[in-house]
Every structure is written in C-alpha cells, then in structure tokens.
C-alpha cells in the first residue's frame, strides 16, 4: 500500500511539471482515460450500424440488401464489447450490477444498464432471431459437425417454416426494427447526454451534445459497414455490389454533412455567445487539441472523405479505383470519429474548471487503462464480427446464389 502511494506521489510530481496556469489540486490526475474514449466510440458504431440496417428493412432502400445482415451482426458484435471499457475503468467493477439493481433516478448514467439490456435483448437479439430463424432451421439440417447442434439450439426449438410462420417472422422483424430506430437514437443520444448534462464542464455541457453524438454515431457506423463490406468481399473474393457501395457512400456523405453542420453550429454558438469559458476553450482547441481536432477530426476525418465521396458521385470511372477510394474514405472517417471521441472525453478534462489552466494526459503503454488494452478492446469486436460472419453469413449468401450453408 505504501509502495502504491509512493508510486502515485511520483506520478503526481511528474504531472505537476506539465501543468500550465492554475488548476484545482484535484484536477491533476485526469480521471476518464482512453477507455472512456472507446466507450462512446464503440456505442456509436453499434447505433450507426443498426440505423443502416433499418434503412433497408424499414425504409426499403433495396440497394442496401447485401449489407443488412452484416449491419445487424456488426451492431451485435460491437454492442457485446461496448460495456467492457466501462467495466475496465470502474474503481469497483464487482459492484457494477448496482447500476441496474439500485439505479439513481436523477443520474443519466443510471439508465445505461436498462438502455443496454433493452437494445441487446429486445432489439438486436430478437430481430436477428426472427430474421435468421428460417436459416437456422435449414442449416440445422444441412450443416456438418458441431455447427449442426449450434444452429439447432439457436432455433430455440421453433422449427416451423410454414409460409404463415415466415410471414410472422418478417412482420415481427419489421416491428422490432421500427422500435429499434428510436432505441438506437436513445442508446447513443443518452451517451451524449451523459456528457451534455455536465453543467460544470463548458466543453461538454451543451444541449447539442446528444445530437452531435447521434450524427457522429451514424457517420462512424456507416463507415464501419463500408469498411467491413469491402474487406469481407475482398477476403472472400466475392464481387462487390457497386450499387450497394455507392448507396453506402451517399449515406455516409449525407451523415458527414449533417454531422459537420451540427458541430459547426456548436462552435458558431460558442463564439457568438462568448461566455466566460470561451477563452480557455479556444486555447484548448488551438493548443492541446490542435492536431487531433483540426488535422485528424476535421481535415482527415471529415473534409477529405466528404470531398472524395462527393467527387465519386460525379466521376464514375474505374470500379477498382473507386473501391479503393471508398475503402480509404471509410478508414479516414473511422479514425476521424475516434479522434472526435478523444477530443470530447480527454479534451474536456484537460482544462481546469477554474478556467485558468491545463493539466496533461499521459497515456500509458501497458496496464489496465493503457494503450495496449485500448487496442485490444478495439480489435475484439472485429474478431467477434469475423466469427459471426463465418458462422452466420456464408459466402454463398454474399454472392446471392443460394441461402443454404455450403459446408
């Protein structure tokens, strides 16, 4: 215990060297680390991916059919990982269930467990089950080896594939998607509200925060699907459906423009109202956040992909080059939104609530809240989604030839 205290004392002494101006003494150790940056990032990807799925299902955007199931599986894989960074950050993760057992009604964070459970169980799992039930029944008869009992188990014993039953499946799926859209907005809007409700922090405490979070979620979710669709097709040597890819591109551009507009509105409002926090926020943006805000988030993550996507609506030459361009755009947007989460979460803690100075954030390489853990948590949903694609999205289905599983 003494060693731990000594280590803390040394770390604090080192941090003190990097403090600029005056900060309240308790603000020296930046509290919400890179793991809390990942939490809204992963949740945003969940919500964004689901909204893409709903475009096909509810709004009948037929060109998006090839990515409907991919969207749903992606949403589920990322949702499964989303609470892990939160758990990793808690001082007492073993007490986490108290959030659901004795939620404090006035806390925006208390709603987490319920929104999460609702989204996982009432929306994603149910919709996937209704959508896949027919295939589970089919695959449980055709698949080989251990996959057969797995698919059989996943039917939950409901093996009726009569036309009437399938109609009901479809109807239920549609109803759940309709419920799912506001749920997706709720899921990410509430994450935005956690930050937006902090009136103590002028960088976070804006009424636009939930809106910004929802649109940035859509941007990142769409980009993720573009990325995953291309990578899956390339790895499986399946022809990319260019109509589908172009529709995703248009959706991404639209979401980017709206997201940029809302964020621009936020800045215009701040600059025009010019309250007591403006000076320190301008210093923050032009100083400690300069590269991550202007270069990565705004320029590389927003402006470059937006121009590129807009250009591709006009120029339609060379499908191979276009695929590469879409791929690069999706990667840039994914990095840009990660930078946006960093700028919100870490940026909001870099300046003092006394509005007189800045502390610093030192990202450790190893440790519970280190860089390696963060990389692991970003890669984990990709591993999960790969397994899901392998199990539930057979190659044959992507080529559109047959829905039966081929092994």
């Amino acid at each position, binding site marked *: 215990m003494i060693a731990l*205290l000594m280590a803390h004392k040394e770390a604090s002494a080192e941090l003190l060297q990097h403090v600029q101006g005056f900060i309240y003494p308790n603000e020296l150790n930046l509290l919400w680390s890179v793991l809390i940056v990942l939490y809204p990032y992963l949740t945003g990807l969940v919500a964004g991916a689901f909204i893409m799925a709903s475009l096909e299902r509810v709004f009948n955007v037929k060109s998006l059919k090839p990515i409907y199931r991919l969207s749903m599986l992606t949403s589920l894989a990322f949702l499964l990982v989303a609470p892990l960074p939160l758990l990793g950050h808690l001082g007492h993760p073993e007490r986490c269930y108290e959030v659901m057992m004795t939620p404090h009604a006035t806390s925006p964070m208390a709603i987490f467990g319920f929104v999460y459970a609702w989204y996982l169980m009432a929306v994603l799992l149910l919709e996937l089950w209704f959508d896949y039930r027919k295939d589970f029944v089919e695959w449980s008869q055709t698949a080989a080896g251990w996959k057969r009992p797995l698919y059989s188990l996943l039917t939950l014993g409901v093996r009726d594939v009569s036309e009437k039953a399938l109609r009901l499946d479809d109807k239920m799926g549609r109803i759940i998607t309709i419920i799912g859209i506001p749920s997706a907005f709720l899921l990410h809007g509430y994450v935005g509200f956690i930050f937006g409700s*902090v*009136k103590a922090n002028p960088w976070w405490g804006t009424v636009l925060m939930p809106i910004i979070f929802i649109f940035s979620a859509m941007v990142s979710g769409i980009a993720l699907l573009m990325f995953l669709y291309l990578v899956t097709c390339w790895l499986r040597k399946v022809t990319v459906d260019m109509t589908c890819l172009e529709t995703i591109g248009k959706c991404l551009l639209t979401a980017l423009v709206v997201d940029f507009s809302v964020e621009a509105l936020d800045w215009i409002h701040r600059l025009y109202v010019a309250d007591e926090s403006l000076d320190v926020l301008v210093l923050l943006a032009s100083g400690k956040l300069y590269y991550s805000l202007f270069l990565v988030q705004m320029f590389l993550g927003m402006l470059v992909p937006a121009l590129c996507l807009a250009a591709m609506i006009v120029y339609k030459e060379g499908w191979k080059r276009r695929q590469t361009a879409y791929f690069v755009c999706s990667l840039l947007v994914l990095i840009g939104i990660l930078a946006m989460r960093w700028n919100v979460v870490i940026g909001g803690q870099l300046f003092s*609530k006394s509005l007189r100075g800045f502390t610093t954030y030192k990202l450790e390489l190893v440790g519970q809240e280190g860089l390696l853990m963060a990389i692991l948590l970003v890669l984990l949903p990709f591993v999960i989604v790969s397994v899901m694609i392998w199990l539930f999205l057979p190659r044959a289905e992507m080529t559109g030839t047959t829905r039966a599983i081929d092994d």
Partner: protein
Amino acid sequence: MKSSQQSVSRRGVLSALGKLVAGAAALATARKVRAVTKQAVTTPAPAGYDPTKHQWRMALDVNKCIGCGSCADACKNENHVPRDPGYFRTWVERYIIKKAPHGSGEPCGETLVDSPNGSIGGFPPTLVPKSEILKAFHVPKLCNQCSNSPCDMACPVGATFRTPDGAVLVDPTYCIGCGFCVQACPYGCRFINPLSHTAEKCTFCYHRITRGLKPACAEVCPTGTRIFGDLKNAKPDDPLLQFYAKNRLQVLKPHLGTLPRVFYAGLDEEAR
C-alpha cells in the same frame, strides 16, 4: 411441427421472458429498499444522532485567511487523505492581481493563482515584485455541500447522498468508482481515492460535527476564517448568525444554480 404447437412454444418463450423481467424488477425493488435503509444508517454519526434536528453551515471570511495551510494539513490528518499533491478535501488558493500597465485604461492587470501542495506548509514568496501587485488574497476551498448538488444527481447508484442536516456524503461501501460525480462537481472538490478506488470529498468532518465538535479545518484555523455552526440550534449571539448579519455574502459560481451551503465574505470576482 404444426403451427398450433408453434404458437404455444412461442408463447412459452415470451412468458418465460416476462417472468424473468418480473423477477428482476422484484429483486431491484428489494435491493432499493435495502439501499435506502442502509443509507439512513451508514453515516459516521454516533447512535442516537438525529440529523433532522440540525442544519450545518460554514462561512468563510476571505479577509482573514493568511494562507498558512493549517486547515488543509489538519484535514489530511483527520480524514486520512493521501499525502499527495493530487488529492485534497480542502485547500487554499492564493490570488495575486497585478497592477495594470500605466496608461492601459484598465483597473487591474493579470491575475495569478496558485496553490502549491494545496497550501500545506504555506505559500512561498511570490516572484512578482511588490511594486507590481495591486492586491493579493487567499481563498480557502472545500466542498460546498450544495443543496442542489450536481454530484449527487450524477451518482448512478445513489452512493452519494444528501443528509437532512445539510451535508453531502459518500457511502464508500456502495460507490462503484465511476467518477461521474468528480466530473459533475463544478468546484473540483471530489477525487477518486487511489487506495479505496471510491469517490471522496469533504464531509464537514461529519464524524466530528455529529459529536459536538467543529470540523478539523475550522478547529485549527488560527485566524478564525472558517466559521461553522448549526442554524437550527443557533442562539442570537452565535458567531455564524453574527457573521451572516454583519457581512455581505457570496457563493462560488452562483450561475450554476448549485445552491451551496458554504458562504464567503469578501470574495473578489476573480475567485472561481
């Protein structure tokens, strides 16, 4: 399988789900009741103390504070706060307001603020030449025990709670250490204890005041900057009431609507 059996099976699944939800709700209610009763008894107050019969307040006379840091030191001793420059339940800030450059047309120049080690051990002499200083003063800080406390609102499990006698406390056996309260406090008064991994803050020395003692900081203050009292049991000549009567009082960051229970006399607009 026939469709009639099918619908029964589907209904069965839904009914099982319903039972699960009902069970979880019942469990949650039971735990909530337990938490509320637990909260009522898990304060450091002695048995027999009735929080409804007291109303604690602190007032600070900024003009009297000399920045000796005895309060911050006593607080760390009394409450076992880590001896580290990043963890304080109370501290003192020094404000030095420089003269405006001649002919600038401004009433005063730059404001310099510091609080080395939270003021423990006092302040080193300033590097600003005396001739350039317009005015200087010290501002002691502590949890404002807000009536409309944002930290209490933010706590997702209700580990932070307001007592009927005017304090805001944390139940360390219940806190999950999420740090949302730390973010929600506009005054920087909270921190996550590096040993217990739970949220911590000034409690007005609740274990002392409920036994008829003053908070440690007020007890050791050599100049009487910190005036502490019980408004429900104050006689007309009570120092706190006298202080209220004789001074124009302010709270920190009033625009946030937190309704602090800690008041300041002689505060400059530069103090936040």
